[in-house]
């Protein structure tokens, strides 16, 4: 039952994410785009929650939907960007873009469905009725195929997997983490340098 609900929630948030992403691309006003992006990021975070990656989901909300979005909005406001012209005038380009993106999406979908056992998951509505059949790990002949394996039961007080993620991050990927922080520093310095007013002399 829980799994079925989680499944339904996944499809719900996936739909919201896709629709709001469409909004980002389609809206003529950058502010609208930014707001749509916020929705899209939030639903993406929800999808991450569905997969049990709570920490990443939270990071997604804080960094993307929080910091980055605010930055975008700030810049949009600061630069006082006008809306683009109507979609009709850029129709040929839009068609080309949609066609290419469509081909890409089609190929990715096809590739995903080509994975062994990819289609063996049950319909979530049917799973509501018979949750035993759904929760059992059936038909996963390969690691790529079938429904995702259930997470190990953990202490409910801690957010699942955060501790393990932190351990991996600060042991195995410690050096990479440090280097990453330098990259962030460089980014900050670079942004400051670029943002300076260039003297005309």
């Amino acid at each position, binding site marked *: 039952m829980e799994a079925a609900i989680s499944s339904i929630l996944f499809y719900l948030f996936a739909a919201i994410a896709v629709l709001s*992403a469409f909004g980002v691309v389609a809206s003529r006003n950058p502010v609208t785009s930014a707001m749509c992006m916020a929705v899209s990021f939030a639903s993406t975070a929800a999808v991450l929650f569905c997969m049990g990656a709570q920490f990443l989901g939270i990071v997604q909300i804080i960094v993307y939907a929080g910091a980055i979005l605010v930055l975008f909005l700030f810049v949009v406001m600061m630069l006082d960007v006008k809306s683009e012209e109507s979609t009709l005038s850029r129709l040929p380009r839009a068609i080309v873009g949609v066609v*290419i993106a469509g081909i890409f*999406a089609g190929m990715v979908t096809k590739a995903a469905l080509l994975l062994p056992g990819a289609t063996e998951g049950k319909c979530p509505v049917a799973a509501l009725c018979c949750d035993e059949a759904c929760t059992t790990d059936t038909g996963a002949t390969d690691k790529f195929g079938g429904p995702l394996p259930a997470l190990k039961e953990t202490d409910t007080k801690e957010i699942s997997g955060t501790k393990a993620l932190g351990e991996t*991050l600060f042991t195995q990927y410690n050096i990479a983490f440090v280097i990453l922080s330098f990259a962030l520093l460089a980014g900050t310095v670079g942004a400051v340098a670029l943002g300076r007013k260039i003297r005309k002399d």
Partner: protein
Amino acid sequence: MTPLAHYLILSGILFSIGLAGVLIRKNIIVVFMCLEMMLSAANISLVAFSRAQGTEGVPVYDAQVLALFVVAIAAAEVAIGLALIVAMFRARKSVESTAITSLKD
């Protein structure tokens, strides 16, 4: 339970929408937003694979660490990118990608 393929398809569709935005939109700020969407779409794939590759219910955390890095780099990228956009706006009084063609001439 949702199969892996559906996560991947979601990721692919979000990515494609981002790609379409990059291709279609003229406003560089929006193009940049679309780029960010593409990055976060890729994150979905990473986490999904992390789950799928896990054994005995323990995900492979390497992939999640990578996703974390992607988020961090995305933040840095946004900082730089927006600074560039601001600089470009100062120089050209425009944020349209059609305005930056000086490499051609």
